[in-house]
């Protein structure tokens, strides 16, 4: 079965003053894949995914998601189309319970206008999501009291609560212990069964283990793209980023 | 009187207003620039300066100039001490949180204003001008003191500029404004700089008030208009920019004076407040937005 294109960009460009952070990027992402986005700091990875999620506006170019041109849609409307984004720096509702955090995500999906879903259905759906990331037993705790690793999981849970078609994870394993990273890898694999995952990641072990394909960015442009083995073998990439 | 002389008179009145406004607004601008806080009680420091000036001149006998000179020294000093105390007792404990600071300085506004009401009373009281001569134009005579106010204000602003650009204290203030964390790392006593800047800001308002009391009587509610006008000046002029503040003060002060003579002063104020609102709305990142509040 030929994979369907979920997301593509054409000539996507973002300039900040004199600096071009993202420079005419042509990018394609197939439905169902796990794609890793790698590159040195300042390569424009976070700016690029921010353009995809709509957090910032492009200076030029287009973003097409599931056949629809979403370039002019604001971020919240893109979320409703199925693009979920988890922040690089953990961003949760620290003073609310875990359940409330996830409820807000689930509620958005179930809302019609400002009418929220039935409380019981909402709770059940939110608990199911917490269970999926393994935080169900802490549901009534305050999110701000969680360990850093668990906060990152909660972020992912909020993303999952939206039931996205595309989940963008911005450096999800940064600051996690090895054991936590192993759990995370399993979780992402499980998520990828019904969503496409785009992952910015510095940990090459995680990248090699998870990614179906890898995109390498440098200075706002795509330097190389291909399956992990090919990227690993690419001498130029290796010299520059894989410490080889 | 013909239109020409009338315009000249309006411009002179505008220039006197602009001179005092520039000093007062400079204080507000300095506090915002260095400390990144909005001092809503700024107008009350101005009022306090005027009331203390009345109090000092009424205690010192002899020639009016004696009392006035004493007021020029004593009034800013007392106001500065009061401001430093408020900074230490209230603002520092709030960690200069922008929103909490505004609420606290609103409280301070009422405290100072009502203290003045309960001690000084609700009357407006005049202060004699230190010099008494008139400059005779072909069409009208004009108060020599008012012309001196313009000169005095210019000299004081020049002094502030020299302090900021040519002294160690000024360097510390600019470093703190640029980046408090780095300033701390370079052993700049940021806490003391903050207290000092807050005091200096209030003292500039007090100086403006001392200059104005021989023209406008001291009253416990007199801080309202200078506060509003200073806000307008600081926002239009660009925050923390000395040159912008002075320029905006001259433009706003002059046009306030001139428009008020020819049109309704209320209409002038409506337009000015709306102008400020729209500047902030259309340039939200330009002025206060440099740091997310």
């Amino acid at each position, binding site marked *: 079965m030929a994979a369907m294109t979920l997301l593509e960009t054409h000539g996507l460009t973002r300039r900040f003053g004199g600096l071009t952070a993202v420079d005419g990027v042509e990018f394609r992402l197939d439905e169902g894949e796990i794609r890793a986005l790698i590159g040195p700091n300042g390569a424009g990875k976070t700016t690029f995914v921010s353009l995809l*999620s709509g*957090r910032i506006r492009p200076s030029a170019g287009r973003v097409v998601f599931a056949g629809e041109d979403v370039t002019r849609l604001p*971020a*919240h*409307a893109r*979320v409703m189309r199925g693009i979920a*984004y988890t*922040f690089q720096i953990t*961003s*949760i*509702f*620290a*003073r*609310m319970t875990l359940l409330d955090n996830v*409820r*807000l995500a689930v*509620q*958005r999906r179930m*809302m019609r206008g*400002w*009418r*929220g*879903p039935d409380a019981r259905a909402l709770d059940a759906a939110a608990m199911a999501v917490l269970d999926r990331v393994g935080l169900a037993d802490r549901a009534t705790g305050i999110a701000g009291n969680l360990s850093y690793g668990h906060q990152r999981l909660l972020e992912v849970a909020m993303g999952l609560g*939206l039931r996205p078609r595309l989940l963008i994870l911005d450096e999800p394993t940064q600051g996690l212990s090895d054991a936590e990273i192993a759990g995370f890898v399993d979780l992402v694999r499980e998520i990828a069964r019904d969503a496409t995952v785009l992952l910015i990641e510095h940990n090459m072990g995680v990248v090699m283990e998870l990614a179906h394909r890898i995109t390498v960015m440098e200075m706002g442009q795509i330097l190389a793209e291909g399956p992990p083995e090919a990227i690993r073998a690419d001498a130029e990439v290796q010299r520059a980023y894989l410490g080889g | 009187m013909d239109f020409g002389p009338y315009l000249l008179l309006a411009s002179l009145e505008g220039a006197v207003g602009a001179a005092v406004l520039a000093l007062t607004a400079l204080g507000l601008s300095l506090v915002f620039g260095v400390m990144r806080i*909005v001092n809503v009680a700024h107008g009350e420091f101005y009022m306090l300066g005027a009331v203390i000036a009345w109090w000092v001149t009424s205690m010192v006998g002899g020639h009016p100039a004696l009392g006035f000179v004493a007021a020029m020294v004593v009034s800013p000093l007392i106001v500065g001490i009061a401001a430093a105390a408020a900074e230490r007792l*209230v603002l520092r*404990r709030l960690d200069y949180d*922008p*929103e*909490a600071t*505004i*609420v606290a300085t*609103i*409280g*301070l506004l*009422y*405290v*100072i*204003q*009502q*203290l003045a009401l*309960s001690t000084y009373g609700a009357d407006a009281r005049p202060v004699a001008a230190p010099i008494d001569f008139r400059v005779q134009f072909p069409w009208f005579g004009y108060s020599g003191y008012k012309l001196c106010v313009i000169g005095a204000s210019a000299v004081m602003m020049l002094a502030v500029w020299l302090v900021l650009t040519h002294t160690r204290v000024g360097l510390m203030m600019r470093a703190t404004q640029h980046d408090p964390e780095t300033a701390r790392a370079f052993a700049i006593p940021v806490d003391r700089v903050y207290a000092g800047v807050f005091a200096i800001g209030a003292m500039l308002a007090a100086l403006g008030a001392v200059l104005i009391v021989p023209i406008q009587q001291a009253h416990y509610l007199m801080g309202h208009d200078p506060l*509003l006008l200073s806000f307008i000046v600081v926002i239009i002029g660009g925050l923390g920019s000395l040159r912008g503040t002075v320029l905006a003060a001259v433009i706003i002060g002059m046009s306030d004076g001139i428009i008020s003579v020819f049109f*309704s002063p*209320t*209409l002038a*104020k*409506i337009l000015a*407040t*709306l102008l*400020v*609102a*729209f500047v*902030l*709305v*259309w340039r939200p990142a330009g002025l*206060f*937005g440099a740091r*997310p*509040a």
Partner: protein
Amino acid sequence: MSRAVGLHIAVLAGLALAQFTLPEYHHGNLARIMVLAAFASAYNITFGYAGMLSLGHAMFFGAGLYAAGLAAEFGGIAAPGGLVLGVIAGALMAAVVGVLALRTTGVSFMIVTLMFAQAAFLTVLYFGEWTRGDEGFVIASDMRRVLGLDLADPATRYWAAFAVFGAVMLGSLAVARSSFGRVLAAIRENEERTRMLGYDVFRAKLMALAVSGAMAGAAGAAYALLFGYVGATFASIQYSILPLLWVLTGGAATVLGPFLGTLLMFYLIDVSSSFTTAHMMIVGFALIGLILFFPKGILGTLRERVVPWLP
């Protein structure tokens, strides 16, 4: 019925009963306090629940006050129509100001709302020919009648104030417990995260402001019609600061906090004004004291320590 709803019904029942038991002086005060508490509750929607610190709510209260007052004075529109006009005026003004002011946040939002309110206040003075500015005007007694009842009569006035306050309070409770209210709280806690959960943050804030404006407009119109006087003081900066003080005192983002705060501050100022003219000093010290030592207010602190279910 949950205990939260029960508690609020009980408070309303207590206020209804107070009508028959209070001495005359306090009876009159309580009617005034209920109308002002409706204003405070309106402020609490934006400041408490949505976390937007406005310094311009006097313009929404004033919009309702003048809508009802001018309609009675020049349009011959009596009390019920005046109240409806007040609600519309408050909501409309909040929507227009919101579209502009909500482009800003934090300190800029405070200054922008302050400036708009100041412009509105000055506009009242500018059109002094109709509004009679600071001096104000008295609403004719035949305009202050509902269903044949005279609003100047203390008992009728009390019930009318009770009805307005009850409606606003139950409205606040409904907002606090709704999914809309949860979204507002989310915006208050973390705006960017809320946006990235797919919520239209601008629209939610605009709606909160419009609801708040409608409630403040209702309070303003009720104030004009119940007490029969319309003046520019009620549109001045002081009436933007007072609701902030009341809400801070009682507890932001609690449904009953605005009433409690208004009640306490009203009597504190009332008592102090019997021995000093500088009674606004209380307001100053209260603001500083609250923000320094007690930022969550009475009910906010209580909720944190004792009754977590308090809405």
